[in-house]
């Protein structure tokens, strides 16, 4: 079989821009011509970089009627007694996309006695809400949820389906994608309409590169979307959605994975770190003395929560549920105050989506300052209490 990537040796000038562009080290210049080896994953970085259009990738061309697929769907994840905040973020983005496509926004709501959430989904942009209620859906189960949603997709043929890139969404969405036999783009941080198609933007390589992805030949176009990236819409009070009741035929026998125990480790009565607008995080330096209490006081003033880098979990200072980074969770709050963290990629990969980053570190050369808008070379035990006191003063207490 011919290799799908080909270099036109007549057009190639051997300039080497493709060599620099390749993230996989797969291009070399041999005898003044580009040569591509088997490390190539056909990412197309070289195609874009080539000034003479000498590199081509042969793609599958399929012509199918895609116009039968309409509307933008959002899987509305339900948390403790409410639809989760991320569901509203997705509805906000879906409204934007639907407006451009002149199509409708639909929410997909699964659970037990969840119909009461339909109004709040409507107020946040859903024109229609598919409600699938069953007592076996009260608790998330991969097989059951995937079966119900796949059935809906095959029956109603949406154009776009968005899932939250939460742990639940990332367990469910690929199972659905494989059930209906379609493509899925993970953990998108940007979505827009480009030539009538959904242009999906996501980070890769630990956030070191961005990729734009299309799903050109099949529908629906499906993606998981990172929480805390899309703004929440302004709710339109009193809006109502058309309710579509979804008949659910499932039974105990189709449950293949059984829950033996559930343990909630996120702060009791507190906000979850992924959903918080403000995160105050500590690293090694915060493990000294009462470092994390110092951070907690600031977090309390800012209505935020405390996060930690891995070292604090290893030292048993903070629970795993608040670990930010590669083996922990990804946060993208409006404000990330980071104290005593050097800035290794294992940590920064979990926080680089934050909007405003303030770093405090005693080492002026710390990498964390490269990820921050504001930096303070100093001791968190001096800077943070002073800041907490100043904020209290300004609040008039």
């Amino acid at each position, binding site marked *: 079989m011919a290799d799908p990537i080909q270099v036109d040796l007549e057009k190639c000038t051997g300039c080497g821009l493709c060599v620099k562009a390749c993230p996989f080290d797969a291009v070399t210049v041999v005898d003044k011509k580009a040569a591509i080896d088997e490390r190539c*994953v056909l990412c197309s970085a070289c195609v874009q970089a080539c000034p003479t259009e000498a590199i081509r990738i042969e793609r599958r061309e399929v012509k199918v009627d895609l116009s039968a697929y309409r509307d933008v769907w959002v899987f509305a994840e339900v948390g403790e007694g409410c639809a989760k905040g991320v569901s509203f973020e997705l509805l906000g983005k879906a409204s934007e996309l639907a407006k451009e496509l002149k199509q409708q926004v639909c929410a997909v709501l699964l659970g037990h006695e969840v119909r009461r959430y339909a109004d709040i989904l409507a107020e946040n942009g859903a024109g229609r809400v598919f409600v699938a209620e069953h007592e076996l859906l009260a608790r998330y189960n991969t097989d059951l949820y995937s079966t119900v949603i796949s059935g809906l997709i095959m029956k109603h043929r949406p154009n776009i389906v968005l899932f939250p890139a939460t742990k639940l969404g990332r367990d469910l969405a*690929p*199972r659905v994608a494989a059930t209906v036999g379609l493509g899925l783009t993970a953990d998108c941080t940007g979505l827009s309409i480009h030539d009538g198609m959904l242009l999906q933007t996501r980070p890769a390589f630990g956030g070191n590169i961005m990729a734009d992805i299309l799903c050109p030949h099949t529908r629906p176009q499906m993606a998981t979307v990172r929480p805390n990236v899309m703004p929440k819409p302004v709710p339109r009070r009193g809006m109502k959605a058309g309710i579509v009741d979804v008949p659910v035929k499932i039974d105990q026998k189709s449950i293949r994975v059984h829950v033996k*125990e559930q343990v909630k*480790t996120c702060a009791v009565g507190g906000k979850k770190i992924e959903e918080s607008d403000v995160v105050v995080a500590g690293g090694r330096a915060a493990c000294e003395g009462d470092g994390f209490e110092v951070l907690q006081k600031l977090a309390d003033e800012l209505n935020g929560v405390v996060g930690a880098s891995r070292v604090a979990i290893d030292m048993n200072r903070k629970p795993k549920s608040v670990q930010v980074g590669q083996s922990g969770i990804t946060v993208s709050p409006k404000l990330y105050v980071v104290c005593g963290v050097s800035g290794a990629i294992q940590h920064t990969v979990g926080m680089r989506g934050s909007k405003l980053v303030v770093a405090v570190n005693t080492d002026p050369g710390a990498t964390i300052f490269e990820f921050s808008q504001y*930096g303070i070379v100093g001791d968190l035990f001096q*800077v943070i209490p002073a800041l907490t006191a*100043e904020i209290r003063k300004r609040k008039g207490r």
Partner: protein
Amino acid sequence: MRIAVCVKQVPDTTEVKVDPRTGTLIREGVPSIINPFDQYAVEEAVRLRDAAGGGEIVAISMGPPQARSVLIHSLALGADRGILLSDRGFAGADTWATALTLALAIKKAGEFDLVLCGMQAIDGDTAQVGPELAQLLGIPQITCVDKVDLDGKKVVARKLVDEGFEVLEAKMPVLLTFMTPSDFVPSNPPFSKISKAQKKPLETWGIKEVDGDPEKLGLKGSFTTVTKVYSPPRREKAVMLEGSPEEIARKLADILGKEGFF
């Protein structure tokens, strides 16, 4: 007990540096490693096989010929047999086409009680291949597992969820994807084990060997297409706030107040 474990060779993203002038990735000198979550999956496979009183662990990797080294590493960690899925026709695969290729290979390699994967690869971070593979194999999945044990013909796995964790139970065959626990220290096999690993069976399979349809694999079989790869917009250099802690606190409070944080 037969266990299939999927491993991927990845660039060590912790070593990837960005050229401060051009904003592009510097790949030179970046080592290729086994995906850290996959390393944990292999070590857990070895532990589970031994706990079950023996069996066979087949380590499977899809990638260029160089990916052989992660299979050797897996064999040195204790896997019994390696299969390298390497064919230009596999290149450019999205998660669907990757899962399909792995599913074909696993079916070809026989019946398995467990299929283990890392939760995600550190270069792509999609976490999609595991669940897609489970669906294609028609078996249940438990994702984001950090601890697992056997109970007769069942597995009991601790799964991290958004709210905390759950202990789940499933009859085998089942697919698990692993997250590394915070106390996990990857083993580094000694030279003696690496040289023994060289003698273990390691085959290379292409499209023909997995009975694949070239139109359905690799780039041609992919539904999603990368249209552009670029450096993320670079942040301006941090503005350094100076002065006494009180002066700094006032400056910071000005900024945070203006942004409406209190």
